[in-house]
């Protein structure tokens, strides 16, 4: 039994007479501790899959298992709990609370968790030990994204989901972020799922899921993932 299992998952939208399937029978599985990359062109359904996996949306059909639990059957409350304790989310546009300092942003997450890590230490872990008391407006893009990651990690979740984490960052900073994610996965054994449309970074992953038109086009297991510093694009 895999850590994450998607079994014929459908997500349909009704737009008047037209039915659009954002996820059209998606099936895959991810093992624990893997660094997984989901690639695909725009409209492939990657974000949909991530949203469903992250408990932010329901599917219309199919089964989703995370650590053995059937997530697709969760009601609203259980989904909130799922998000609270089991999932860490990193957004493309960071979505930090402007009115809180970096530390407080992370504390926002640790305060509601039941197995949270110490916020300060997590921030130090992402390299922001001396920027803890700055507001997001006083931080650079990369620093903000790191805060975002710290926020996700501090909750000590079962899995870490990242939606185009480097989308708003430049090449160098982006690489730094990816390295952070990869290191986290290796050091803590956290299952990390990253969505991107950048094919070039797929070598760094343990598993590569390619999606197209709402379906899994291919799923590859990479026995020898490459450290991201070594990848150039």
């Amino acid at each position, binding site marked *: 039994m895999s850590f994450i299992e998607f079994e014929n998952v459908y997500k349909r939208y009704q737009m008047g007479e037209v039915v659009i399937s954002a996820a059209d029978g998606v099936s895959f599985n991810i093992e624990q501790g893997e660094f997984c990359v989901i690639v695909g062109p725009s409209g492939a359904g990657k974000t949909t899959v991530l*949203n469903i996996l*992250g408990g*932010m*949306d329901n599917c219309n059909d199919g089964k989703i298992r995370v650590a053995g639990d059937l997530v697709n059957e969760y009601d*609203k*409350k259980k989904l*909130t*709990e*799922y*998000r*609270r*304790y089991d*999932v860490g*989310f990193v*957004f*493309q*546009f960071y*979505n*930090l*609370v*402007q*009115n*809180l*300092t970096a530390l*407080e942003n992370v*504390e*926002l*997450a640790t*305060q*509601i*968790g039941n197995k949270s890590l110490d916020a300060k230490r997590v921030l130090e872990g992402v390299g922001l030990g001396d920027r803890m008391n700055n*507001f*997001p*407006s*006083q931080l650079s893009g990369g620093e903000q994204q790191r805060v975002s990651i710290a*926020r996700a990690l501090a*909750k000590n979740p079962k899995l870490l989901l990242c939606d185009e984490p480097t*989308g708003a960052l430049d090449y160098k900073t982006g690489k730094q972020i990816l390295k952070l994610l990869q290191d986290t996965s290796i050091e803590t054994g956290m299952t990390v799922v990253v969505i991107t449309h950048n094919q070039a970074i797929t070598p760094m992953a343990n598993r590569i899921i390619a999606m197209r038109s709402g379906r899994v086009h291919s799923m590859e297991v990479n026995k020898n993932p490459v450290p991201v510093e070594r990848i150039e694009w």
Partner: protein
Amino acid sequence: MSKALFKDILRSIKKSLSRFISIIAIVALGTCFFAGINAVSPDMRATAGKYFNDKKLMDINVVSTIGLTDSDAWEISKIDGVKAVMPSKTTDALVSIDGKGLLGVDGSVFSCRAYSIDLNFFLEGGEKNESYLNRLTLVEGRYPQKTNECVVDGCDTAVPKDLAVGKKITLDGDGYNINSTLSVTEFTIVGIVETPTFISFERGATTVGCGKLGGFIFIPEGAFCTDYYTNIFVTAEGSEKYPAYSKKYEEFITPLIEKIQAVSSGCIACRAEELRQTLPPKIESGAAELALKKQEAEEKLTQARKQVDDVKYYAKNGEAELEAKRAEAQAQLDKAQKEYDEGEAKYYEGVEEYNRNYEEYTKALAEANKNPKAREQYYAAVKALNSAKLKLSTSKEGIAFLEQSIKSIEEALETRDGQQLYDDIVKALIESGIIDSEDAMSREELSKKLVELKEKLVVSKEEYQKGMAEYLKNKAAVDKASVLIEQLDKLDAAGEELARVNLQLSDAKEELDTSKEKLDIAKMKFEYEIKQAEADLEKAKENYATIDEQYQQKVKEINKALQNAQYDLDSAQALVNSLDDAKWYVTGRSDLQGYESYNQTAQNMQAFAKVFPLFFFLLAALICLTTMTRMVEEERTQLGTLKALGYTTKAIASKYVIYAALATIIGCIIGLSFGFTLLPTAIYNSYGMLFTLPPLTCRFYFGYAFAGIFISLLSTVAASLYACRNELITCPALLMRPKAPKSGKRVALERVDFIWKRLNFTSKVTVRNLFRNKKRFFMTVFGIAGCTGLLLTGFGLGGSIGAILPGQYGENGIAQYDLQIALSENLSSSGDKSEVLSFIDSDTRFAASTLTYFRTLTATSKNTDELFEANLIVPENGEMLSKLIKLQNRKSGKSLSLNDGDVIISEKLAKKMGTEVGDKILIKDGNETLPLKVTGITENYAYHYIYVSRDIYQAVFGEDVGYNCVLARLSDSMKKSTQLDSKKNTLATELMGHDVVMSVIFNSQIIENFGSTIDTLNAVIVTVFTGAAGALAFVVLYNLSNINISERVRELATIKVLGFYDKEVSQYIYRENVILTLMGIALGLILGIPVHSYVISVAEVNVVMFGRSIDWQSFVFSALITLFFAFIVNLLMHLKIQKISMVESLKSVE
């Protein structure tokens, strides 16, 4: 503007309907209040003006001190500018129904003013008659057709309910002879009317009754028997053109008044001369007649008195006799009773003894009956004894005989002599049977016989001994038995005795019963007789009472007639004396009761109009500003795009301007339509109970409408432009990028480490969020403050209005007296011990009382044109007055006392007349104006009072004080007792039983009568304020919360993703709202206090003073209701937050 842009406008309206509507709502509110409050005043005046014109209300009233005549009327009508003239006769009178004096709504004696009316006015075509001025409006029933019919005042607040259609009323004079004025004094009420001369519930002052005029009635001209008019009403040509109460009207009328005044001298001279000729002779002859009549009356009365006294005497004596008889008979009865009782006692003693004896007897009998055969045995024994005795005696006889025979025989044998003797003896022996035959009784035979006989004798003796023994035995037995028998006999005797006694006893009982019957009958007879005698006496007494009553009645009648005649003489004389100083009083409408106070009320409304709408407009602008700012922010990128496309700033801005303007115009239309109709009507109706006028005519005032629209548009458009301005100056590129989120800032509180460290995380977030957006912060706080302030004002106003009656008449009120007793005579001082005064002094139901002079008169001052009806009180004892009326200055809290030289006036009166301590006020007494210098101002809540010390009254009014009123306070025990109402009624009846008492009014009656009026007023005010406040709170809070959420949608979605429960997400926003609401409430409660004071001083009605303080309940309710509104809004926000889709909100901002 391009079609596409226009479509955009319409679609964005559709999409953001709630935003659009919120602007409409706040604008509507603002314009509604603006238009409404501004319209009330002119509407009120217009309504009155129309009414006055329709009913041809007089413009000028002419009154003469010596009466007006037809020629006077003609003179006036000739004057240029006079349109119509209506002469009228009036008289003030007391009213009684079914013989009982009518009491007014406040319990005082009801007096009315009877106006004459020409019955022709009510006939077909009567309205065309130009002389029909002050036209009546028939409310119920019909107009009079006969001389003994009338129509009356129907005002609920002024007139008692007894004055209804169908009732028969009798008018009576007070201090004058009504029969000299009216030929008909009994009228049937056939209808109820309204007149434009009395538009408020105030009726004014009069000289009859207690000084307060109760109501008006209209009676046919024919009922008056005077030959002069009291008033001439005049209308001016073209006066309808001038709006009521306007300056132009005043300026128009004044010259005409002067013209009329100019002709007065001529008319007066004419009239005076006439009177000089006719009156003095009448007075003379009248006086003489009166003197004569007085004499006659005296004689008649003395006679009648004697009759009455006789009857009285009988009644009294009869009483004594009856008493004596009763005593005697009673004594006899008592004696008989005593005897009977003794006999009874004895009887019962006898019965006891009998019973005791009977018991013993029964016991003995039982004993004896153990030996039932005793008697038989005895008898047997006796029989045996007797037979033994007989036997013995026979034996003894036999023995004796034998012995005799023996003796004889022996003798015979011994004798030898004489055979004869021997033959005789033998013969004797044969005769006696001893020997049988005459056989020759030889001696041997004889000797044989002798031996035989001797043997017999021995046997007989033996037998005799036996018999004796038996006899003795029997005797013994008998003796024994006889003892027993004796006992039995005794017993029998006893039994017989007992039976006899029993019989005796029953006889005795019978006797006793008979005598008891007799006694009872005697008693009954006695009672019956006594009753008869008493009944007779009663009858006699009644007769006396009836006779006495009749006598008293006669006395009253005669006295009244004499009094009336005297009045006539006096008034005629007074008239003659005044001829030299005669003048006309020519006045305008301002002297009409209620005329000026109506105007004043209308004016008060205008004061409101300055403040309230401003508040709402300001708010409208603010809301529009925030709303449009939000809208612009949301459409940022669109703006940038349009700019990039090449649209001018103007074109782009126009969208928002049009959006705002459209909303504003719709809002104005709604606001104005309600504002010109509902609001003025609501306000007018809440004052409605004070005025008798037709329903409000609502007018559309273009001025106010345009002003309202203009101000609204200005505020909203300006706000929109301001909102756009910032964005529109920015270059398109920047616009198209997402707006940089507002940077977080440290809050001042953070520096206070001490507090900051203690706050938990969420509190820190809340504090920072609070201060992040200053505009929102202030708007919410002020919006809420406004809501709470309005509520507080509303409740406070309600409380203040509700405080009037208790403040004046309640437990701790100004009036510490519980009842007012009006007297029909003016007592010169309590030295003139009227019995009612002694009654009050001695009765324990009263705790305190004081004698006063009470009168209603008109007061004014140099600082105002208005006339005020005030109650004048002159106490006999200033100190006692302080015990019965709380005289204290409200502002300083000092208590005042009415000492010599003092004149104290009530606070409201002082304020209205602009008078302070030391200033003078002017009193209108009849036709004179008298000044009084004020030495103190006292707290008071209902009506106006002027307290004058005795010496000042005498000095200023030039006459001695005649006390006509008693103020009294009930004792505490009386007030605490059960069934207080019936006790009060009893007390009132007892007081009214004294002739000199005219009326008794309890304060509790006053409170009852006015209670419902005040409650209604209260309800309207509270509803209006609460409604406005609610609308305000809702719009402000809802709007701001909406904006708050839309601004922070991303933030909220993020924390949702982080796993915050719905509740926690809502709380994230709530906390700020709650704090802001609490701050707003606090501010509102504070600000509400001065607003409340302001509203009170403006909205106050003339005759009352609203309570100045706000009770704690108002504060609590205002806060609670605001919280309630906030709660509802929060609930709605919660629902909105729940709906935030994480996925949608966090979509990349590209």
